[in-house]
């Protein structure tokens, strides 16, 4: 669905991604998280990662983007650099759709521990606070608004919203949390937990589901008093 962030038109894609002009943003792919679990004798199917890699490739192709920005948490941990995972990523970024676009990784604190993608994959790795057009790029949400008034795109917290119906009905979905000075993207990875967010007046929220993206601002974000008065 189309909406605006920092007065810029953006498109939210069902695959938990954001498109601005010719740039595709995803956050927290946690590649190889399955391998880390398996190494600790917890069986997690390897397809969680391979399907994410395929999904990213298809997305880059479909979106016809010129640039791919990953907002941190590329590998899940050191033990995530499992051979077949590396080979699949190599295919994507050295020969596949990922090879023909500009690649940017915002290095989060975890990435320092887990390690950057190999040079051959062509990523420019930047630190928190790099800017791109009207946006500032970070891994984690800024603690306070940037002085220059730029708008931050970030990830890190894996935002989710919860809608409740009668009885035990409860729908939990990954979300994009758009705040006045920054927006938090949902986690791209399939084997990732989520954290329920508590938006405050002035925020917006968008839920990502299997068949679309929905603006859930009106039900998930409390209205401030002034807005209510204005409505009356």
């Amino acid at each position: 669905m189309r909406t605006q962030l920092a007065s810029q038109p953006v498109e939210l894609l069902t695959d938990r991604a954001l498109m601005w002009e010719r740039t595709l943003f995803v956050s927290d792919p946690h590649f190889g998280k399955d391998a880390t679990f398996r190494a600790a004798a917890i069986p997690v199917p390897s397809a969680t990662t391979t399907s994410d890699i395929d999904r990213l490739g298809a997305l880059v192709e479909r979106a016809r983007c010129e640039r791919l920005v990953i907002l941190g948490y590329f590998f899940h941990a050191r033990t995530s650099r499992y051979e077949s995972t590396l080979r699949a990523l190599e295919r994507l970024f050295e020969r596949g759709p990922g090879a023909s676009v500009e690649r940017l990784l915002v290095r989060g604190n975890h990435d320092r521990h887990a390690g950057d993608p190999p040079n051959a994959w062509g990523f420019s790795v930047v630190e928190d606070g790099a800017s791109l057009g009207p946006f500032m790029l970070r891994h984690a949400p800024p603690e306070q608004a940037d002085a220059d008034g730029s708008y931050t795109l970030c990830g890190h917290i894996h935002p989710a919203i919860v809608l409740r119906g009668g009885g035990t009905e409860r729908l939990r979905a990954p979300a994009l949390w758009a705040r006045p000075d920054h927006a938090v993207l949902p986690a791209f990875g399939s084997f990732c937990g989520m954290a329920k967010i508590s938006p405050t007046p002035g925020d917006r929220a968008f839920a990502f589901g299997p068949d679309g993206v929905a603006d859930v601002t009106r039900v998930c974000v409390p209205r401030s008093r002034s807005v209510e008065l204005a409505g009356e």
Partner: protein
Amino acid sequence: MPTSPAPSADPAPLVARFFESRGWSSFPFQQETRDAYAAGRSGLVHAPTGLGKTLAVWMGPIAEAISSGELKTEDNAKPEPIRAVWITPLRALASDTARALSEPIEELGLNWSVQMRTGDTSSSIKAAQRKRLPTVLVTTPESITLLLSYPDTVKQLKGVRTIIVDEWHELLSSKRGTQTELALARLRTLSPGVRTWGLSATLGNLEEAADALVGVRRAGTPEPALITGRHEKEIRIRTIIPKQVERFPWAGHLGLTLLDEVIETLEPARTTLLFTNTRSQAELWHNALRIAKPEWEADIAIHHGSIDRASRDEVERRLAEGSLRVVCCTSSLDLGVDFSPVEQVLQVGSPKGVARLMQRAGRSGHQPGAVSSVWCVPAHAFELVEFAAAREATDAREIESRIPLRKPLDVLVQHLVTVALGGGFDERTLLDEVRTTHAYRDLSDQEWSWCLDFVEKGGNALGAYPQYTRLRRADDGRLTASSKAIERTHRMGIGTITSDSAMLVKWSGRGGTLGTIEESFIGKLRPGDRFVFAGHLLEMVRVRQMTVEVKKGRGKKATTPRWQGGRSPLSSQLALAVRRKLDAFRQGDVTDPELEAIAPLLEQHRAQSVIPEPNELLIETTKTRDGHHAFLYPFEGRLVHEGLGSLLAYRITRDEPRSIVATVNDYGVELLAPDPLDFDEPHWRALLSPNNLLQDLLECVNSSELARRRFRDIARVAGLINPGFPGENRAVRHLQASSELFFDVFRDFDPENLLLDQARREVLDQQLEVSRLRGALERLELMRCTIVGIERFTPMSFPLYAERLRAQHVSTESWMDQVRRLSAGLEEAAG
């Protein structure tokens, strides 16, 4: 060190002298048990609590010890090696049991030692026990399983002659029961001549209980002995009748309104146990009684499973010495030694089952010549009918069955790792052993190899789990643990079959533990919030890892924590009795004081609708602001209704995408839909048909959250989730994932995973009770169907309406449609 053989003695006079010295005469059933034991048989002794069951099974092994000459002499410094394992479901019972078992040992001068090993045992004792076990080990299912995971204790356990499982009925139909079955099978392999005895309360399926205990018998082994204990004494069941029965019997509505009458009942008795069905209710009543009767302050206590062990021990000590007037308690006091000062029992709310009411009543009246007396306190008006019904069913001894579980694969997976740690195993031999348990007697080869694959390769999905290994295959084909880290996490996980994620409640600053509380409750509190726990008004200070720090709170307003699993469903025995009582009323029989009291309410119902006959299904329909309601009253108990509600909702929504809310209680089902539910009789009959039941229910389970929620336990038992223990750090952060996430990735990426299958099976068998549901549908088929349009809610429909917060939701809409509807609904509610 070998002991010098003492002259073997004829045990009979010694044992008789012991009985005499204690002022007990041996009852025939005790003699019968000893004889059966001496003849080499295993068996089950069933009798109400405390009536000499312990002694009955214990005299056999004692007599055996005497005749084997295991007496204390000058030159045998070390006690005999391990001979007997006593398994108890409750750690709390271990110390009393150890004391009771020691008495004859000391009296008769046996060279036997008795020690406990439970989660509470100190690590130094545990370490010493690993080197040398005591002669008699009193332990829990978890701890005996842990012992099976150490090669050095496994070797010692080969000397076991007797295993006794106490309170077997408590374990029987739970995963802990299955865990016990597997441990028993292991012990029988280690020590082939071992005899297994169980102690149980009376059950509807004693033979099956005995079969599960002794396992599939080898050819030539005699059948297990089923020994009936001394007959219990008279049970007197009375009800505190409210002076004014409310017009509408909400669940929990009457609650504390009977406080004055309860106090009146408490006055004359020396000691009363006030049983509630939930820990929250116990806290509520404890608090209310203290406020209402400040002069009793020092003599009122509280006892439930979340309260710190030391405080519970203190309460039990004072109960035994008779210095307490009232103890507000939960099932935590259902079991254990008898407290002779207890003169009466109060049961707040429906006991939901005949066995439970009898068990609780039996906790009173141990003075000579006394009867067991229980006063029932209704928590809502309709429970009056349940009490009258419970009395009738108790008098007729219509006691419930407890059905042992069938092959839960999560428990088996855990067991495989346990056995691998305890010295490794050969798969063929272990399969044969596992198949000797009642639970896994028909385990298929395919299920077995899946479980093996799961621990060795992650699963049988080809190549899905590279690099994974929990067990390693040695050159000789035996399977052993693949690393020390796995041994450690596995042992930590063994105790987790029961535990939910519990947080420790501690006094801030000065330390001292109050007990444990569920994380989900603490999650809703903020620092400064007050709540009642362990009989104290507390203020939350902060949460640190798995510990909640609290200080004394001031004021009166406070919340009471809700613990999970508080609500048990009406048993089919009691449900049937309720139906009979209603029919008696319909025919004008109001001899029960409870029915007389509720008569105005039932009359009102009759004026608005009909009181169904035993062979009549009543359906009420109406329309309110919320939508269109249909109420059905099969009187089959909550579990069956849950299945029925899901089934009906699924069948109604199957044809067109729509959304239905199904609400259930023990009496009926409510369906709520945005469009009319004004079906005619043939249509209802089609919806209620038992045809395609399993298939439809499976569809329904797949499309709902039911299986996903069930996966919580399974993921934990199967070792997917390493729980944080109270006071310990949580599992390493990069290895954290929720059970829901596991469910989703298995469903999406390894749909053949049998643990998913187990989750569905557990929903069908245990949650929706599919076999009971089928029976119910077959009964409904033969019933007359009466459809009544009602103007306002009737006394029977209102409680269902009030229950809405726990309703099940069935929807066949797309994700977007569901989001749209939920958004619209929420906006309306807000607006």
